[in-house]
């Protein structure tokens, strides 16, 4: 039995969004460590132990949260790359979109995301959503694996 809880990989370029999201995670007392990367390329670097993540401990995240709109590699591009690796393809991925109008990109898609989350105007519903995600994926997933 290994009680180690695997981290959540969170990719977001906007500092305010990072702060709000971390606040939400803190608020719901999530136990997972949140690893923050700032663009799609860094997501891949993290997952593939490249560049600045060359020496990080060997472990895969329990959940990946991708911002839809990121520099270098966008959320969708990063998603496609992740899903192209057999060993990464089972990690649940949540896409964060900034308005309801981007929904259609994921509703009828061939992209295999597990959920998308519209960034709400207020913190409260966001916290609720994050909490739900945490319940569904992060903790559950860590327990199952280890």
């Amino acid at each position, binding site marked *: 039995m290994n009680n180690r809880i695997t981290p959540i990989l969170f990719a977001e370029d*906007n500092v*305010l969004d990072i702060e*709000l999201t971390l*606040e939400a995670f803190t608020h719901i007392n999530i136990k997972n460590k949140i690893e923050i990367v700032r663009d799609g390329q860094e997501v891949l670097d993290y997952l593939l132990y490249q560049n600045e993540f060359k020496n990080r401990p060997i472990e895969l995240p329990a959940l990946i949260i991708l911002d839809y709109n990121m520099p270098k590699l966008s959320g969708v591009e990063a998603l496609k790359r992740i899903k192209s690796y057999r060993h990464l393809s089972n990690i649940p991925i949540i896409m964060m979109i*900034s*308005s*309801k*109008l981007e929904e259609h990109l994921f509703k009828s898609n061939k992209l295999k995301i597990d959920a998308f989350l519209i*960034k*709400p*105007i*207020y*913190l*409260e519903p*966001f916290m609720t959503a994050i909490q739900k995600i945490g319940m569904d994926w992060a903790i559950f997933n860590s327990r199952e694996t280890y």
Partner: protein
Amino acid sequence: MIQHGFKERKKEEKYQNIRNIFNELPILYLEVGNDFKCQYCNSAFSTALRVKSRHITGKTINSVFSQSKILYNKMAIALKGKTIRFHQLLYFSNGVKMSCNINITPRRNRNNEIDGCYFVIEDRTELVKSNEKMLELSNKIENILNLSNIGTMLMDENGRILLSNQAAQEFLGYDKQELVGELLSNFIHPDYQKKIKSIFQDFMTSYTIFDVSKQKHIRKDGKEIWSNFLLKSVKNEAGKPNHIIVMLADAEKASNVSINNRAAIPDFKSVFRHSKVGMALIDPYGKYFKINKALQKFMGYPKEELIEQSFTHFLHEKDVQKNIDQHNKLFRGEIVSYVLENKYQRKDNTTIWGNLKVSAFKNKNNKVGYAIVMIEDITEKKEASLKLISYKEELKNLVDELQIANRDLEAFAYSISHDLRGPLRYIGSFTQLLQRKVKEPTPQLAQYMNNIQQSVSDMTNMIDSLLTFSKLGRTDIEKQEINTNQLIGEVIKELLPQTQNRQINWSISDLPFIQGDYFLIRMVFENLISNAIKFTSKKPIAYIEINTLATKGAKKTIYIKDNGAGFDMVFIDKLFGVFQRLHRQDEFEGTGIGLANIKRILDRHDASIKAVGAVDKGATFYISI
């Protein structure tokens, strides 16, 4: 009786020689004694009668021929020493019928006494038949020729007249009988006969068609006349010319048109001269050589200047090349006519539009010698249509610009509202964080923070509806059949939270199925029903009726009627505008974009919406889809 003596033998030999000769010939030969009995017939004779010669010899001529009486009489004459030649339709006793030339010659013996006759019979049946046919045919040809106003004659290869029509007879002043059989040259003035004879000789050997201009003739009445001839040879089966057709035209009448050795066209001149359509004749080098008044007027140049120049000189430079191309094609024989719309440069430097029609005119060598040009002034027509085209183009450009502007505006609205959402989110979220962190805020501080929250909320609603609105103009419509009652049932179920603590009397009839994009049409009903619920909220009992009107045509009308706050019809124009509201925010909440969205959705379905209302008496919205 035949006697057998030396003399007789000699005579027999002589007979035999004649007989041998006739046996080889296809001529019927018969010897009849002075006793009228047949003594000998050649094989042609027996073949013609389809009997053997021995069945003929020894028989009297009345048993061989049916018309024995005529032959008896004729032979009786011959027996008197006279050779008789006559034509007779012969009936033989076996029924054979023949049209014959019969020659009966007395036969003399050594003593120079007539002892019988030689019958030489030539079968003319076929010849007569074909002669009859020929006569019939020539009569027919004559009749046909008589229909023509152009003097026409047929001659044999020697220039002897075989046929002539009435026009030719009138022209030359001789009647048919006087012309036929005579040489044509006999009717030409002696000064010109030599020329004509040599022309005929050359013609028979070298030409198939030939134009002979200006001959002098003397009519029967002595009057001198001038003619132009057109000779055309007729070939026999072997391809050798054996007849000549002569067409005569009065050279004096035709003199003007035939200046350049061209065929005369009766009446053309006056048509040409008086036509309101510009007309001209043009040569292969592109020069007008005949120009009517109308064309001179059209071009604005005097005749002399028009004749000097190539036609390209008068064209607008833009039109020159296409005209040259067509002109060359025409004169090369690749096309027989062409039509072009051209701009012409007049002498006074004004421009004028002409519809040009050019037709080739072939000369005797089957080459295009010149062309007939017609130019119609279409300036007014052309200018009107050009104006129309330019209006259309302008309009199209405007519409295009408008569409582009519209699209740009939509894209702009979309990106602005999308981008505005980010900062707004931070304001909202951080205000909430602030509220959490500030323990026990003063009532005023709490109020400020609430105001911020409320403003963020309002602005979010506006941005979201703006996003929806701009999206409606951009998404494609996927039509399907919609079960309207089912859709409305779903919508009402979804709106139930809004109806809590309310008394609403619903009246929903059987509604027709409609065609539309399910998602968008649902939005329409969602908005309208939600409005009905909202605007009846101040009534103790709300009535909401959804029903259909019987309509003519393919469109269906569904209406939603409530007894709510209604509206003043004065503001009907504002009802469907973006962010237009007819009630204060503290009366009824809303962004003022709902009806604008509805109108936009229905526009995109080629459907329409109409509203009727009165203040405090409710509103009715009619959808026609």
